[in-house]
Every structure is written in structure tokens, then in C-alpha cells.
């Protein structure tokens, strides 16, 4: 118990706390606390305050002293006549203990003693910024339009994507649960495919489909002739949303819809399948027309599912980093801002500020989702009779056509990625080649990164399943120490609300701190595993708790009365009965570890590059075809593991059929 609480504290609570305090760390030059003296061969002159000196020279603006932790100011700037060959002597000191001080002879000096230096030594003196705690970072964030417009952008994108995804997923779920069309199983499986690929791959697919060298255009030219298509294409290109516009909000929305579709679908299918047939019979008996039944029975029944799906999608989109990075172009969103601040500008404090800003909508969406889901459970009644759809030719055909369209689009995006990965140089050389699979000559870590990813996913599945299941067992079956268990439950729910980028950044602050005894995990496979387990903790935890809740609460008591050790009931009964849930958790962790980018992008080292990050980096370097190839490798791996899981589950079900069914 203690170990797992400790784990969640170290892997979640402490890093977030450190990040929060980082966002309030400000750096500014405090020239007013630096004093200088010069000896030009006539003894020491008067003591000069650096601030007064700088203002006099017009090189220091007292209103613009803010800088980053890496800001440096050369001391020689205060002496326009400075020459390192002159025999002049310089003295420098702080007037206040503990201020930022300056670098002298390569070492920081923060005391108030005078340093006496020759001009050769003085040449290298750099004044350092002083650290303070305050809201300065937030003020500068909100006074930089380039930064805070991202808030608006992120919210817009998330809201539009949410509306589109939930609408599409509701229709699809409606077709799957309320029609008698054929191939429902296949449609459901295809709809789940986007879970198996990194979100970036959707962006890459869209670029190929609708980008500057659009595959759609090429196919159209091939089909109708270049002359016929060209005027149409030009018209589109000159319109408001021409093909180049795929880089930007349109592309982000389409790709976001693609990768969030299955998440929304699962929730809405669940909501629709708990419908009570008696309600429909009652409505028909009262002669309600069909649209009215839909409005008064179907929608209210699925209401909580729809709201929950909406918030889940909103959260996924607003925290996603892969899609806007690949297809966002110049359109800034919060998640990418964090990446740019940290990786591009090394401005960690500002990265922390953006993280905190991103945390707010994510936390709100998370809270609403939790409240709604609690209500959904209360709706379930044991007396409900499940709804059975009746065949209706026109309706079934319409639904079938719609599902075909969606399934075709999902598979199309993947097929395009695979096609692009296999040809030499789109669109000029269409001959097939495996050249794009020669990852070792590209940025991103080569085939090693693929091996690393599998290794990381494997460890995550093993370690994560163990941690999650044991933790859930303690919460569910533990006795006494109630406040501790409530606290643990809260910690276990938190990761869902924490965007991956934020978690990754918090890990840098926490684990990379030189005084942290856990510093040694930084840059290893270990930190990637810890981070991924934590990132995907919540859903796994809920799965485990649900499975444990279905078990008789008196099993432990019986076992104790029979004087058997606690380990025996755990190994002989609890684990076997929960095995399907345990397998579900491990596969969930594996698949997500393979596709995740956001949390680990800050944490990998040259030895632990990952396939999903390689997709990002290759795309960044312009190697889009190899990026697609790597993305597809992830897809095949995940699909393979999923099939293995399905086989295992089926075998297990057959073996345990005797005791599961009455």
C-alpha cells in the first residue's frame, strides 16, 4: 500500500507541485545591487552603481530587466572604452547577499566581497539574473498576444472537434445499436483502428490526401484529365479553404476528429445499449410519432453518455500535441506552445506557465465528466429489458451507407499512409521501394527507436498492470485508514486530467533537479515507463476497480476464517476471476505506450528514442514518407498485439466458461 501511494506521490503529485512553483519563478537583472570600481593607474575611482551607469549610457532600460534563467549580461558593456589590452583594473561586488550575482572566472559569485580583476579577467564577467517569486511570468504571458491567442485557438479547435466528433460518433453508434444492418462487428472493429496509431499519423495522412501534392487531386486528374480538373482545383485553391489550408485549423479539426472518434464511440455505444425496451413500448402504446420518441426517449437515455463523450473528446483535443504539431502550420495551440517554449526557446518557466493555463480547461472538462459519469451509473436499472432493433429496409440501408463512408475514410487515411511509405518519392517517382523504411539514415533514432518503443510498451504493460491492480485492490479491499484510501483514489483519478505535455514537463523539473535523489532515472528507460504508467493510470485503475467491485466482499473474510494466508486468496481467486480485466489493462497500457508522444517527448534520451517520437521528428525534418512508414509500423504492432489479446481472451473465456455461465 505504502509503496503505491509513494509511487503516485513521486510520479505525480511532487512533479506537478514543482512545475507549479516553477511557473512562479521569475528572473530579472538586478543591476542596482551590483557595484563597480575602476583603477586606470590612478588608484580606485568612485564606486559606481551598475544601474545608474547603465541608464546613463542608455544600455539598460529599467522597465525591461526581465529575462530567463539563462539570461547573461556582459559587465564590460558598462565601459564603452573597455579594452582587454589596457592595464586597467576592475572591481565588482554585490551589495546584497543572495541576489543573482555574476559569473567570475567561470564561477557564480553571490557574496558581497569585492573581486579585483584585470581587464583580461573582467572581459569574461557576466552578470546573472536574480530569481524571485511572483506572477511576472503570467503577466508577460498575457501581454504577449502571440502566446495568449493560443488559448482562444485551442478552445475553438477543441469545441469544433467535439461537436463534429460527437455528432458523427452518435450516428455511427446509433447505426451499430439501433439498426439491423449487416457487418456490425466489422464496422465496430474498423472504428477502433484510430486508437492503434499515434495521433500524428492522422495529420500525415491528411497532408497526403489534401495537401499541396494532394492525392485526391492526382486521382482526379488521372480520372478526368488534367484540363478538366485544373480550373476546379484553382477555384478551390483560391477560395477561403483551399488545399494549402489543410495546414491549420481545418486540418487540426479533421485529424482530431479522426483520432478521437473511437473514444467517443465507445462511450456513446455504452449509453445507447442500456436503453430500456419497455420505454419504447410505452411510447408506441401512447402513439408517439417516431421523431417524438427519438426526442423524448432516445436522446434523454443517451444524454449522459453524450455529455461524457463530449468532455472526453474536448479533453483529448485540447491536450493533444501530435496533430497540431504536424498539420497545424502557423496556427498556435497551447500544447504546441509548451513544446516550443521548452524545446525551441529553452524557456522552462514560460513552458510551466502555459502548462498551468492548459491545465485549467482540462481540469474543468475532467470534473464535469466525473460528475456526469456518476449519474450515468444511477440510470442503470436491473429491471430494464434490453432494446432489440427491428429490421427496416430504408433505415438499415441509410445507416449502412453512412458506416461505409466513415469506415472508408478511416481505412483510407491509413491506406494512404501505407502507400506513401512504400513509394519512392511522391508525387514524382511512384515506383515501389522499401527505401523509406531505412530509418537508420534518418533523424529520430532509426530502427532502434522501434525496438525501444516495444521494450518500453512491454515494461509499461507489466509494471503498470501490477501497480494498477495492486493499488486498486488496496483501495477496494483495504480496511481502515479510510482517509488514506480516499486520498489514494483521488490521486489515481488525477492523471486523466493532466495533459501529457504538462506531465512530461513536470518530470523534467522534478527528476532533472540535481538535488533530487531520484535524479539517476532521468534519461533512462525507467523514467519513460514511470511517466507512461502514470499518464494512463486512471482508465486502468477504473477498469481494475470495476472488476474488483463485482467480487463478493466476503471472500477475504472466508479465507481468513479458514486460516489461509492473504496471498492464497489473491493468487487463487482474485487474480483468476479478474484475469480478463487484467488482460484489458495490460493491452491498454501497451497500445498507449506505443502511440504516446506528448508526455515522453521531453524525456527521451539519445539511447531511449521512441518510434512515436521518431514519427514526430522525421516529420519535423521533412521526411514525411518515412514518418508515415514508422507510424504504420506502430499500427501493425498494435494490431498484432490486439489480435493476440483477442485470441487469449477467447481462449480464457472457453476455459472458464464452466464457472462464468449459469
Amino acid at each position: 500500500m505504502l509503496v503505491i501511494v509513494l509511487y503516485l506521490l513521486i510520479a505525480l503529485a511532487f512533479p506537478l507541485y514543482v512545475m507549479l512553483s516553477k511557473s512562479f519563478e521569475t528572473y530579472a537583472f538586478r543591476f542596482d545591487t551590483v557595484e563597480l570600481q575602476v583603477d586606470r593607474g590612478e588608484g580606485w575611482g568612485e564606486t559606481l552603481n551598475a544601474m545608474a551607469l547603465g541608464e546613463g549610457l542608455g544600455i539598460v532600460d529599467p522597465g525591461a530587466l526581465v529575462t530567463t534563467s539563462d539570461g547573461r549580461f556582459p559587465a564590460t558593456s558598462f565601459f564603452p572604452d573597455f579594452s582587454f589590452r589596457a592595464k586597467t583594473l576592475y572591481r565588482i561586488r554585490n551589495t546584497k547577499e543572495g541576489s543573482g550575482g555574476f559569473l567570475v572566472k567561470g564561477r557564480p559569485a553571490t557574496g558581497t566581497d569585492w573581486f579585483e580583476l584585470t581587464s583580461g579577467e573582467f572581459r569574461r564577467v557576466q552578470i546573472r539574473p536574480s530569481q524571485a517569486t511572483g506572477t511576472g511570468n503570467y503577466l508577460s504571458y498575457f501581454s504577449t498576444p502571440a502566446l495568449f491567442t493560443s488559448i482562444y485557438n485551442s478552445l475553438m479547435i477543441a469545441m469544433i472537434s467535439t461537436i463534429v466528433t460527437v455528432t458523427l460518433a452518435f450516428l455511427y453508434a446509433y447505426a451499430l445499436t439501433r439498426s439491423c444492418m449487416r457487418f456490425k462487428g466489422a464496422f465496430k472493429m474498423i472504428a477502433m483502428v484510430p486508437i492503434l496509431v499515434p495521433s500524428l499519423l492522422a495529420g500525415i495522412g491528411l497532408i497526403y490526401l489534401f495537401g499541396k501534392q494532394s492525392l485526391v487531386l492526382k486521382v482526379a486528374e488521372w480520372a478526368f484529365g488534367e484540363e478538366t480538373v485544373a480550373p476546379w482545383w484553382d477555384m478551390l485553391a483560391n477560395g477561403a479553404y483551399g488545399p494549402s489550408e489543410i495546414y491549420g485549423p481545418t486540418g487540426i479539426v479533421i485529424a482530431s476528429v479522426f483520432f478521437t472518434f473511437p473514444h467517443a464511440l465507445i462511450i456513446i455505444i455504452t449509453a445507447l445499449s442500456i436503453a430500456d425496451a419497455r420505454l419504447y413500448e410505452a411510447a408506441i402504446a401512447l402513439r408517439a410519432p417516431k421523431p417524438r420518441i427519438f426526442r423524448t426517449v432516445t436522446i434523454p437515455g443517451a444524454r449522459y453518455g453524450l455529455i461524457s463523450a463530449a468532455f472526453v473528446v474536448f479533453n483529448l483535443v485540447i491536450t493533444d500535441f501530435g496533430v497540431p504539431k504536424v498539420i497545424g502550420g502557423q496556427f498556435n495551440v497551447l500544447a504546441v506552445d509548451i513544446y516550443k517554449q521548452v524545446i525551441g526557446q529553452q524557456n522552462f518557466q514560460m513552458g510551466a506557465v502555459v502548462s498551468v493555463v492548459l491545465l485549467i480547461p482540462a481540469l474543468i472538462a475532467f470534473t464535469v465528466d466525473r460528475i456526469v459519469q456518476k449519474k450515468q451509473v444511477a440510470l442503470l436499472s436491473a429491471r430494464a429489458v434490453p432494446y432489440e432493433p427491428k429490421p427496416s429496409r430504408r433505415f438499415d440501408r441509410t445507416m449502412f451507407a453512412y458506416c461505409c463512408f466513415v469506415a472508408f475514410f478511416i481505412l483510407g487515411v491509413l491506406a494512404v499512409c501505407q502507400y506513401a511509405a512504400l513509394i519512392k518519392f511522391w508525387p514524382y517517382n511512384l515506383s515501389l521501394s522499401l527505401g523509406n523504411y531505412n530509418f537508420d539514415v534518418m533523424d529520430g533514432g532509426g530502427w532502434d527507436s522501434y525496438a525501444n518503443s516495444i521494450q518500453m510498451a512491454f515494461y509499461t504493460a507489466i509494471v503498470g498492470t501490477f501497480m494498477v491492480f495492486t493499488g486498486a485492490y488496496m483501495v477496494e479491499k483495504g480496511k481502515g485508514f479510510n482517509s488514506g484510501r480516499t486520498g489514494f483514489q483521488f490521486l489515481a483519478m488525477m492523471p486523466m486530467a493532466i495533459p501529457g505535455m504538462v506531465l512530461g514537463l513536470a518530470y523534467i523539473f522534478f527528476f532533472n533537479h540535481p538535488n533530487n535523489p531520484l535524479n539517476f532515472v532521468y534519461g533512462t528507460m525507467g523514467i519513460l515507463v514511470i511517466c507512461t504508467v502514470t499518464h494512463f493510470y486512471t482508465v486502468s485503475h477504473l477498469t481494475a476497480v470495476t472488476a474488483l467491485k463485482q467480487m463478493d466482499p466476503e471472500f477475504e473474510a472466508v479465507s481468513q476464517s479458514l486460516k489461509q494466508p492473504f496471498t492464497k486468496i489473491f493468487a487463487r481467486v482474485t487474480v483468476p476471476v479478474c484475469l480478463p480485466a487484467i488482460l484489458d489493462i495490460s493491452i491498454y497500457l501497451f497500445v498507449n505506450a506505443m502511440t504516446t508522444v506528448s508526455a515522453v517527448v521531453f524525456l527521451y534520451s539519445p539511447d531511449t528514442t521512441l518510434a512515436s517520437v521518431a514519427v514526430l521528428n522525421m516529420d519535423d525534418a521533412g521526411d514525411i514518407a518515412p514518418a508515415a512508414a514508422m507510424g504504420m509500423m506502430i499500427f501493425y504492432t498494435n494490431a498484432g498485439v490486439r489480435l493476440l489479446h483477442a485470441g487469449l481472451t477467447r481462449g480464457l473465456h472457453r476455459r472458464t466458461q464452466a464457472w462464468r455461465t449459469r
Partner: protein
Amino acid sequence: MSESGAGGETDRTVYLRIEDLTKKFGGFTALKDVTLEIYEGEFVCFLGPSGCGKTTLLRAIAGLDIQTRGRVEQAGKDISALPPSERDFGIVFQSYALFPNLTVTRNIAYGLENRKASRAEIAARVTELLDLVGLPDQGDKYPAQLSGGQQQRIALARAIATSPGLLLLDEPLSALDAKVRVHLRHEVKDLQRRLGITTVMVTHDQEEALTMADRIVVMNHGVIEQIGTPLEIYRLPATSFVADFIGTMNFVPGTVSGPDRVRLAGVDLACESDGLAEGTAVTVAVRPEDIVVQSVQGGEENAVEARIGEMEFLGSFYRADLVSEGLGEARLRADLSINLVRSQGINEGDPLSVLLPRERIRIYPGSAVRG
């Protein structure tokens, strides 16, 4: 009491002794200073409405919910602070808690493993137990393939497999159909008698308690209301709560009007007044089946003139509402046998003289009991 089914109590050894047991859940007191002795080989029922603390008491004896204060002593040994695994008992829950993924045989053998018994010994013991509970051929099935009654017997077999000194039953029959329940009552009781194992059963079903127990512990609001044989509990309920909870009881408000006399609205009755002072407000209680209807002479002691109100047909008898000026607003329910009604030609609205036998009347101080 000589009526006790298991013989006199005085010459028997105390097996389980509970002293001043108190259990609190936060601010709520589930058990208040409960003291109780259970004799060796006895079948004791904890009876009471839900929330009365009976299950809490059982779980304290088992060590599943350790008491806040007080002592539990089993076979002369203080076990107050021991965890369940170091106590000596077998337990059956309402849900049976059979391990769904283990066969019947392995469920029963569960407690026999790790006890230095050989495989053959374990197998022999399991066969013996399956025979004992009357399910000799069901060993290879899984719990989900058995009926509720069969699962119940397997749970019982598992609980007694290790031959514990104490058997605890937590509402073991309440999840079963009415018919199976009645049948199993006898089986469980019979098994307990044959094994001679000290048994404590928790139930909220008075019929179950009356038919199965040697002694009943009636509980309410975390305290023991009465301990006694089924007959004592039924005939001589110690408190108005027990009188009301067990069986059917008429309650009529009255006042003590002299030594061994009590006055109702318009009639004086002779009864044991337990030394209550004159003028004390009391509740007079009498069971419907104790009201005598046949051959009552007017003017006889404790005779009441009444009129028959509504008559409710209950199969083997009628339960009739009696209205009388002597009773004021209160009504008496009396059981009239089918024969009596037929032979006397009794109809609703007829006048009737009834007798409230002096030795069947109980009085309780206070007047706040539902009539």
C-alpha cells in the same frame, strides 16, 4: 427454564463469553455494552430488525470488525485482539461467498490445504463432507452450476471442513426461496445437533429463530433486549419491543389501579403488576390467540363485553377485530378458529363476551407502543 430444548443451563460450560462489548462507527454506536454467554454445543440466534447490531456483534466475534471496547473470550482464552485467522471459527455468509473459479471440491478443500494433511486425507474429508450435506455427486461442478440451496450447503461444508469450535452463520437462509428455506432450516439444525458444534446465527426472521435456536438473543438499537429460549421469548417477552417484534400482540393503554390490578378505559383487569406503583401509566399486552371466546360467562373475572368488527380470513383461522366500550379507542385482535366461527355462527357485527386470562396478560411501563 425446563422448556429449553437443550436441557438445563446451569450444569453446562460457557464456551463464548462477551463482556461489555461496544462498537462505534464514527459517531454512530452500533453496539452498546453487550454482555452475553454462550454455552458449549448451543445453537444461539441473534434476532432483531435491520440495523440493530446483530451482524456487527457476529463480525466482532469473528474478528472481522474488531470492537471499540470490551472483551471476547472463546474456550477460556481471551481472543479480543486476535485477527480472524488466529481465531477458531467457520463462517457462512448470506451471499455464500463461494469462490466462483474453483470447483465444489476445491472450495471445500480450500481450508484443508496447508495443514500438513495428505492429498488422500483431504480427498477423504471432502467426500465425507459432501455426504454429510447430502450432495455426494456434485464435487466437480462449479458454484454457478448449483442451485441456491445447494450452494448454501457447500458453503456450510466449507465452513465446517476444518472442524472449528464455533460456527457463525450470517443470515444464511435469507437469499433462498421460501420453500427451500423451510427445508434447509431443519437440515442445518439437524447437522448442528449431530456435530454438536456451538453455533451462532444472525437472522431477522423470527420464525427461523423460533424453530432453530436453543436460545434467542433479541437485539434492538445496539443493546440486548432479552435472552431466552424460544418459548420464554414468545410467552414472556421482557420488553414491549420484544412483545411487538415476536409474533402478533395487542397493545392497550391503561393505568395500574391497585395491587395486581390494571384499569383500561372502562374495565378493570386482574394481572401480575410486577410491583408497579398505583397510577403508573402502562401498556397492557395480550396475544390474539390467548383471548378466550368459548363459554365465557358475564361477570367472570377479566371478562369483556365486545362486538365483532372486521373479520380477516387467514386460512386456518379468522382474525377478528373486537370493539368494546371497556377498551376505549383501542381494538383487540382475537384469533377465532374456523370450527368456532362455524359452530357458533359468528358474523361481523355480533356481540361477544371474551376473556383475557390473567396469566396471559403482560404489562409494560410507559404508553408509547403502537396499538
